């Protein structure tokens, strides 16, 4: 189980391959990659703030919860902070299991909790100005299924 909080970018493909190699014996590997997208067509940057003292432990707790609930051979969470531009990778989750259902469920669970329970805040900087990304009710609702 691995949690990394970093400002540097990362290579999702290289991370996926390294993760898969390390969980030898798991037949199913699921990954999720979040990429900065320019929804409005005028995004100049995305700024991600986090709560350094809390981030690592909050993520580790979410990963522990996933490990307790599903039959996982491994789990990886990478999340960036700082200033990112369009098409940059924001974060990545990977899970491995003998069963594809466990790998999928755990990855979705990790994503749902990362969205609403890990101390990150996104701000979009556009040509028109800057604005904090608002939390969405559907992200909060997504937690109810777990």
């Amino acid at each position, binding site marked *: 189980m691995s949690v990394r909080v970093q400002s540097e970018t990362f290579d999702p493909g290289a991370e996926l391959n390294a993760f898969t190699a390390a969980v030898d014996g798991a037949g199913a590997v699921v990954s999720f990659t979040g990429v900065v997208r320019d929804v409005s067509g005028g995004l100049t940057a995305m700024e991600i703030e986090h*709560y350094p003292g809390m981030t690592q432990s909050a993520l580790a707790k979410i990963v522990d919860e996933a490990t307790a609930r599903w039959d996982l051979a491994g789990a990886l969470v990478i999340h960036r902070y700082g200033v990112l531009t369009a098409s940059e990778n924001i974060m990545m989750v990977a899970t491995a299991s003998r069963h594809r259902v466990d790998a999928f469920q755990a990855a979705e669970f990790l994503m749902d909790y990362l969205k609403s329970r890990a*101390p990150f805040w996104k701000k979009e900087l556009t040509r028109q100005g800057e604005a*904090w990304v608002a*939390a969405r009710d559907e992200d909060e609702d997504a937690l109810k299924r777990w």
Partner: protein
Amino acid sequence: MIDVMYFAWVRERIGEPKERIETDAATVMDLVEELRVRGERYAAAFADVSALRVAIDQELTEFDAPLAGAREVAFFPPMTGG
């Protein structure tokens, strides 16, 4: 003495990321009431606590949580990670 931290637009409204506060507040909400009367920026930041989240010593909690023994309290908007 307690460390009070602010993140995202709460930090921007208050104008500081962190401050040390002398308080006898029994709960988070009591602390919020004390902060609100510190000035307009605080009043604006804490106008609607339903729009805020709080952590005590880096664990998410509720506004009615007791502050006894707390070293660090953080206020911030709902998180938008992922």
